[in-house]
């Protein structure tokens, strides 16, 4: 792939992007308390997405495009919930004005049932009175490989309470610096005390790396293509091409880094 030539990306962009229409804020849950104030909305495809919008253009991390690309890539390798483009109309917003920052074209992260953010996991299982889930090693290894690949900063993971599956979320802070061509630095998101070594076995790590290496340049190009324009998105062609080139390069140097983390 010639990452200097924008013609392939332009051709994909010309196909337009698919947008899912928001219907209503999920009445059973409020917005998250994090900076980007994601809020759950049921959309026209019958799915619930956590919508992230334009809270403060000057502070919107790396723009909505980072969240969208990260979610698309996570879905390709099975490391986390998918991200889609969502259109939020005035009719779909609560009339009390609590979600007006979501009006317009925003990004939506597919809701995962029965999960807890690892940062809240101990409190969640204490509140629910359920035993701590046994963390799934294969998905944990995949998430470590994935977050290392995309250079997740302020990395976060969800843990499914029923089977301990680990999922990567919150990719809005990725791709801040895509000029560095050095090897990736390990990103290991802590989950629960005593689970630091879960997923570090060679079979889990090798399987995880193989999944990332199986992502083709064409898939990376598609992941950065067909993105809305606008300040909140921060998605000019040259930036997206740079992200794609950076991801392609890091994919090819991921194995050596992950081998260093793996335990025999």
């Amino acid at each position: 792939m010639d990452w200097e030539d924008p013609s392939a990306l332009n051709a994909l962009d010309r196909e337009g992007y698919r947008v899912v229409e928001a219907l209503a804020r999920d009445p059973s849950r409020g917005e998250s308390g994090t900076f980007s104030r994601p809020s759950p909305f049921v959309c026209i495809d019958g799915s619930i997405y956590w919508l992230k919008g334009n809270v403060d253009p000057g502070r919107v991390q790396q723009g909505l495009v980072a969240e969208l690309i990260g979610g698309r890539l996570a879905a390709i390798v099975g490391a986390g919930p998918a991200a889609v483009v969502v259109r939020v109309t005035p009719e779909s917003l609560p009339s009390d004005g609590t979600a007006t920052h979501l009006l317009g074209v925003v990004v939506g992260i597919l809701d995962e049932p029965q999960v807890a953010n690892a940062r809240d996991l101990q409190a969640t299982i204490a509140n629910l009175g359920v035993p701590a889930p046994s963390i799934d090693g294969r998905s944990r290894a995949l998430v470590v490989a994935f977050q290392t690949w995309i250079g997740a900063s302020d990395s976060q993971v969800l843990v499914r309470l029923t089977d301990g599956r680990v999922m990567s979320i919150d990719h809005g802070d990725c791709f801040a610096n895509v000029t560095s061509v050095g090897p990736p630095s390990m990103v290991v998101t802590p989950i629960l005390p005593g689970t630091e070594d879960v997923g570090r076995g060679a079979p889990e790590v090798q399987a995880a790396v193989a999944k990332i290496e199986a992502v083709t340049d064409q898939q990376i190009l598609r992941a950065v293509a067909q993105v809305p324009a606008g300040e909140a998105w921060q998605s000019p062609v040259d930036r997206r091409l740079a992200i794609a080139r950076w991801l392609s390069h890091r994919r090819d140097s991921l194995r050596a880094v992950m081998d260093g983390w793996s335990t025999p």
Partner: protein
Amino acid sequence: MVDSVGGRGYFSLLRWRAEPSRDEARNVAVLLVDERGDLGAIKAAPISSISPRLHEQGLLDQVIAGLEAQFQEHPKPSLARLMEWQGSFRHSLSLTPPSETAIPDLDLALSALYRAYVAPRAGGSRVLTKGRLLDSVITWARKRGVEIRRGNYVENFLFDAVVGDEKPVLVDVLSFATTAQHWTPVEHDAAHFLYALERVDHADALAVIAPPTEASHRSALDAHERVGQWFAEANVATVSPDQVGDALAGTPRLI
């Protein structure tokens, strides 16, 4: 591209708590209205997916059928009506407070809300169980205006379905189209139906029976034949699912 945006509406979820003493309710239907009652619709989960108990199925079916009937009228239930209902449901059934929603298209919005909040989770078996077959019989009958009640008592006997009032048709629904190996419960079901039939005056009878399939155990063939003989000896008409239409033709209709 997406359709142009329509107006704003409101939705509530009908919730069913099988054990009123336990805080474990599940969503069984979504009701969608607009402020004035110009448009609205209801979509409910298949009754058999909500409760395995016939009597509960009858109660739920009665409530949902009653609500569906009101959405057939003009004007349709409005936001004010939805709020009235919300205050009136008690005990096992409850209605969530109306929530705002966009309605770019009534059918699409209803379908999306149904899939998000009500639809049974994917991965379930598609086997034609008795419950599913009964769902189909009830749906088929109502679509054609046949007056049918699910899980209904007649003279102290509970029947799968009852058509009409003055000289009702008592319906038994049996499915041998599963992979079960033991058929005693189904034989008990048929025997109870025949026992009850002898004690109910002025009623006709109909048995809707899904025959065994290639996937069925051999024991299903034996049980199917045995039950078929019982019904024949009792002069009870038996039909397969695809013959229900002809069998119920001429039965009492809703006005």
